[in-house]
């Protein structure tokens, strides 16, 4: 129990009241970094994202080599009356196909890893509301634009670093597995480095999109569900919905606007559907979605009662 005497000795001990300047962006960035590094959920979600991306990428790569092997052994073709010479041709054709999409195969896990960065992006802001911390945060730093910007930048930086590490590790692990059948590619190969970096950028942008959604909805479950719905469910639905009436516009004209298709062309080329946007234009569209969510979140963050 601290006595009153102790209190009188201590209060104000190391606090200057009117130092020059004012509480601003740099201190708030430090604060937000302390926040994100001091809760376990950050480590758990980033670890989960890493494991899912690398693990599923590795499994998918392994699956490709296994299928190629069984093709080589003629398991699927024998008995269909196909001569051995033709089998060799089919295998070579298939191997070339795998090699041309080797980067995308090793990054396949990002399709699922994106859902985990959605969780972290949402929680970064919604946990402030679910715990009540937001009231303490905005009392110590009432300039809300500064708080929002610091939070977004710190989360964006963490997500980018984690995304790049994940993407690179997934790539190298996947290529290692593919190299057993000599169907791998290398980081120095044409456009490969851009694709791998693109994987990291995609994860960071997905996180920021869900950060914006979290700021708008202020509710963890709602924001996570919306983020996953936007990134994943829309993607699945597009494969099952009827095509638009002919003469209006083609299915691809619609599909290319789907967030996942727009954003993912940067790191995967032929795995999923059609990508009429060029990689960087598509990523630009995806970033525009994220920006819209963030701006919406900021406007509400500034206006609403906390």
């Amino acid at each position, binding site marked *: 129990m601290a006595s009153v005497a102790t209190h009188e000795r201590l*209060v104000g001990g190391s606090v200057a*009241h009117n130092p020059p300047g004012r509480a601003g962006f740099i201190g708030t960035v430090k604060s937000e970094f302390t926040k994100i590094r*001091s809760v376990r959920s950050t480590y758990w979600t980033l670890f989960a994202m890493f494991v899912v991306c690398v693990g599923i990428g590795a499994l998918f790569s392994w699956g490709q080599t296994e299928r190629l092997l069984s093709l080589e052994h003629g398991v699927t073709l024998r008995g269909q009356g196909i001569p051995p010479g033709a089998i060799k041709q089919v295998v070579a054709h298939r191997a070339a196909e795998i090699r041309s999409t080797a980067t995308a195969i090793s990054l396949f896990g990002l399709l699922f890893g994106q859902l985990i960065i959605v969780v972290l992006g949402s929680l970064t802001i919604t946990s402030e509301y679910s715990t009540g911390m937001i009231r303490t945060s905005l009392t110590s730093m009432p300039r809300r634009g500064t708080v929002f910007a610091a939070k977004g930048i710190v989360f964006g930086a963490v997500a980018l670093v984690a995304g790049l590490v994940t993407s690179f590790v997934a790539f190298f692990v996947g290529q290692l597995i593919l190299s057993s059948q000599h169907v791998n590619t290398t980081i120095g190969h044409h456009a490969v480095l851009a694709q791998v970096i693109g994987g990291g950028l995609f994860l960071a942008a997905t996180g920021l999109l869900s950060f914006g959604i979290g700021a708008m909805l202020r509710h963890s479950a709602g924001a996570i569900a919306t983020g996953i719905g936007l990134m994943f469910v829309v993607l699945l639905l597009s494969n099952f919905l009827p095509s638009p009436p002919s003469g209006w516009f083609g299915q691809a004209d619609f599909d290319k606007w789907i967030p996942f298709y727009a954003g993912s062309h940067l790191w995967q080329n032929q795995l999923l559907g059609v990508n009429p946007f060029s990689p960087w234009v598509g990523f630009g569209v995806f970033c525009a979605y994220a920006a819209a969510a963030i701006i919406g979140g900021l406007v509400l963050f500034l206006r609403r009662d906390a």
Partner: protein
Amino acid sequence: MIEARGLSKRYGDTLAVDNLSFDVEPGKITGFLGPNGAGKTTTMRLILGLDRPTSGTVTVNGKHLNQLAWPMREVGALLDAKAVHGGRSAYNHLLCLAQTNNLPSRRVSEVLDLVGLHDVARKRSKGFSLGMGQRLGIAAALLGDPSILMFDEPVNGLDPEGILWIRNLMKALAAEGKTVFVSSHLMSEMENTADTLIVIGRGRLIAQSTVAEFIAANSQQSVRVSTPQRELLTAAAASAGATVRDDGSGKLLVIGMTTSQVGDLAFENGIRLHELAPAQASLEQAFMELTASSVEFVAGLPTELDAQPVGKVG
């Protein structure tokens, strides 16, 4: 110094704060009193800029909170002890707050010592008891050694030792010349702590005065009487214009008469008295009388005035 002018806040159809104007001055403890739902917390949220007023203004040290150069060095607040992320350690919780205002990390250690949480500084706060949570909230409020401190219901859930500690802390802060603004629905707590009072009910200002003035002005005189002839005394007092209640322990409470008046009345009517004493007017009583019409939730207000009137004849 906190200055509110015509402060109003409407949530949907509810006017939570209705045209409040008051000053909270430095160097003393200002109690902010009102029944549950009176608008105390909303008022504090308006002061802190968490809510935007529907109309009116409120300033701290002459400025809106978001215009202060170093907010934590001017205002510290304990709004609710649960306004922390339970997954974060006490130390990191305070550190992330300190960093926004460029406060040194040794200040975090200082306030942890001050509130007695030094030994659990590295523990996650979700495991804290209510009292420890309250101390953590107070540590956060004290971080910037601000000149204005606001505490919303600080003794809620605390044990007697904790209550005494907070009371002494607030007195020490006021003695240092700080502005201490503390809300409570516990009138007895205010009576022991506050120098002046701001009383609200249903969002409206009911009174602003010193504690002594408030009691004197708002509590009716009453006299505690013990008599075997209760009905006779009740009738006599009622016909003399006083109100009589059972005080809950079998004695009568004659409201609106002095001891000598009650004594004379008993003598004139030949009523035997076993006890005659002035009932100490408490802040609680004064408060209940004043806010009787402005209580939002009537049930569950434990006070002797809840006792049934014995009767009033004539």
